[in-house]
């Protein structure tokens, strides 16, 4: 499965963070690289939505929908700034 990019989850991110996030900058907790969210690697076919760092490939964010609720794991994200 090819990776998409952060643009593909603009609606999901807006819903979770209540703001347009694809132009924000996310910093990877693994390698420290800062990337525009629109350029992060996004996998929609995983169990849930997996967002990876385009530099080191480690997981930055995971979103799982469960019983109408979105569960969010941001442990791979050091920092996010609009």
């Amino acid at each position, binding site marked *: 499965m*090819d990776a998409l990019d*952060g643009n593909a989850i603009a*609606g999901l991110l807006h819903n979770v963070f*209540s703001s347009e996030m694809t132009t924000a900058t996310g910093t990877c907790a693994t390698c420290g690289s800062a990337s525009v969210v629109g350029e992060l690697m996004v996998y929609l076919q995983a169990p849930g939505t997996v967002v990876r760092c385009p530099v080191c490939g480690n997981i930055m964010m995971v979103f799982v929908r469960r019983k109408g609720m979105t569960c969010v794991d941001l442990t791979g994200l050091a920092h996010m700034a609009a």
Partner: protein
Amino acid sequence: MARAAVQRRLTWQLATVDAVTDETPRVRTLTVGVPGWPGHQAGQHLDIRLTAEDGYQAEREYSVASAPGEPVAITVERLDDGEVSPYLTQELQAGDEIEVRGPVGGYFVWRPEDGGPLLLIAGGSGIVPLRAMLRHRQQTGSTVPTRLIYSARTRQDVIYSAELMELQQGDGVDVVLTLTREQPPGWDGHTGRVDAELLRELAWPAGQDPLAYVCGPTAFAEAVSATLVGLGYPPQRVRIERFGGTGGP
């Protein structure tokens, strides 16, 4: 504060399909009336949610195909194994209702003040957000030099064909089509993929500080953007949007 303007809660709402237009045998444009639509920028998306009788829901993001200020439209390519696109392209009719939310996104967006020269490169239905940009450019009277390179499988797969030909005739927009799977009799356009050779010939030289938007299937978008960077485009001047359809460039 400017931030306040973007902090808008996204909610699903019912929209009415006002018109359906067949673009190609596999592609259809849906014009939808969304009550209270706050307006969109060229390149933004719209989310669509379908709910089955058993409650199962599927959501997809589609690029808005129309320019800011125009009625909201999306252009959908039918993927035969898709969950959503067969319904949108074959069953939905004018007068029907669908759930939408948006607009969303902001990275793959062009505003006239972003300038150019603009290089728009589309693979397959990746033309959709670029078409919104082209219409917006025209609508605002922008004179930014603009070149569109659009790769489609066959002549029949070219979306917005008549509109693009019209643009080519008058408006300071170069439209370059390349066909990857056929060479029809009398075809005087390009054939084959958008590769380094084609881009060396047709991309604005990096010295002109061009701004590139590349939209297409992941492999297409990554190959094209890597080639542009190889030609000297700074990565931050190459905006990419990948999509996952199987339609192909």
